[in-house]
């Protein structure tokens, strides 16, 4: 089959690309669009490093075909900050040393943003369960959870 032409919106900008039918959205982001912030840690939806937000829903971009992006609105790690201003989550991750190697970090941040979009006042337990699909092997999650809770408080104006 010929390549599929897809028109979509990524991080607020119109985007179009050609993809193979079996190409995942993660492959499209990384290989066709040079958006390499989304990472492949497993390719099977078990690690969350490729997390993106599609039409308001958090998904693993490795578990979505590029062809399915047609007409969708997509947010990747590259679109979390507001221009020069880091998202409060990004800032809190830096302040709390919530990253070590940084490989899982884009996925964790996108997932955390989706959490706070849906629930501005998560409990620690809710944050832990929401982020259970984002594996981090460096931090033991402690500082990640601290940073998410702190960012949530700041975004609530506390």
């Amino acid at each position: 089959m010929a390549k599929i032409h897809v028109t979509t919106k990524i991080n607020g900008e119109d985007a179009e690309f050609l993809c193979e039918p079996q190409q995942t959205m993660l492959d499209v982001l990384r290989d066709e669009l040079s958006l390499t912030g989304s990472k492949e840690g497993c390719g099977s939806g078990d690690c969350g490093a490729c997390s993106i937000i599609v039409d308001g829903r958090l998904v693993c971009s490795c578990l979505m075909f590029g062809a399915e992006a047609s007409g969708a609105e997509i947010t990747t790690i590259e679109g979390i900050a507001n221009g020069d201003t880091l998202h409060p989550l990004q800032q809190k991750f830096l302040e709390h040393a919530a990253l070590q190697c940084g490989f899982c970090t884009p996925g964790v941040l996108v997932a955390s943003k989706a959490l706070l979009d849906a629930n501005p006042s998560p409990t620690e337990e809710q944050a832990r369960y929401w982020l259970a699909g984002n594996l981090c092997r460096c931090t033991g999650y402690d500082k990640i959870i601290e940073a998410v809770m702190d960012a949530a408080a700041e975004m609530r104006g506390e």
Partner: protein
Amino acid sequence: MYAPNFAAPQSIDDAVRMLGADGAKPLSGGTDLIVQMRSGRNRPDHIVDLKKVPGLIGIKAEGAGFRVGAATPGAELGEDKALVAAYPGIVEGAELIGSTQVQGRASLAGNLCNASPAADSVPAMAACGVKAVVVGPNGEREVPVQDIPAGPGKTSLGKGEFVKEFVLPALPANSGDAYLRFIPRTEMDIAVVGAGVQIQLAGDGTVAKASVWLGAVAPTIVEVDASCLIGTKLDDAAMAKLDAAAQAVCNPIDDKRGTIEYRTKVAGVMARRTAEIAFKRAGAR
């Protein structure tokens, strides 16, 4: 080079026609299909994305029951307050499929038709009498969900057939449902044992009707003879009998997720614990 076709039909008729082709596979959330394609276990010639078909995504209240579009992602079920209030167990099962990310995509139909014995959404649906509306070249039929999987990775669906929606029946009076599973971690695992239960109470608060189904302990989900619960308030003796009845229907395998012995023992535990929750929910209504 492997190069499948991809199509996103916009009507039931087109979907039926496309799925009638040799080597065609329906795509809903894709959380199983894409993994299988990547590993080379599944190589469809035609990928038919059903999500653009009207009615395939969404939840409609219908009388005292519901119709749930086959490809509705799990996260959407959890956000529907009326559905959660009526069928918390079914929603619990659906919401246990994978991570938050997987919840953004994974659907009831995909979970059912992937035909894994460990599918989390199926035992509670079976316990609650949910029917799948199947469409295909020969029209439409309603099938109890438990009749769709025919064994690991196999379904009873004919060529060109797919599940369009699920019918959740009118909620029986004084009833409650629940789903629990056992996994080694707290998230991200496949069920070692899953238990779905619906209980209806009589006026005196005793169990009038009980339906108990287990997942991951046999090639398909299996029903437990729950007659021991009838007329009781789940006293210790009744629970011991349920535990034994649950263990008696188990026919599991030894694999990386559990041994026969362990799965059988835990099946009894899960049946009891799930029944207890369903009983409490029924009593609270």
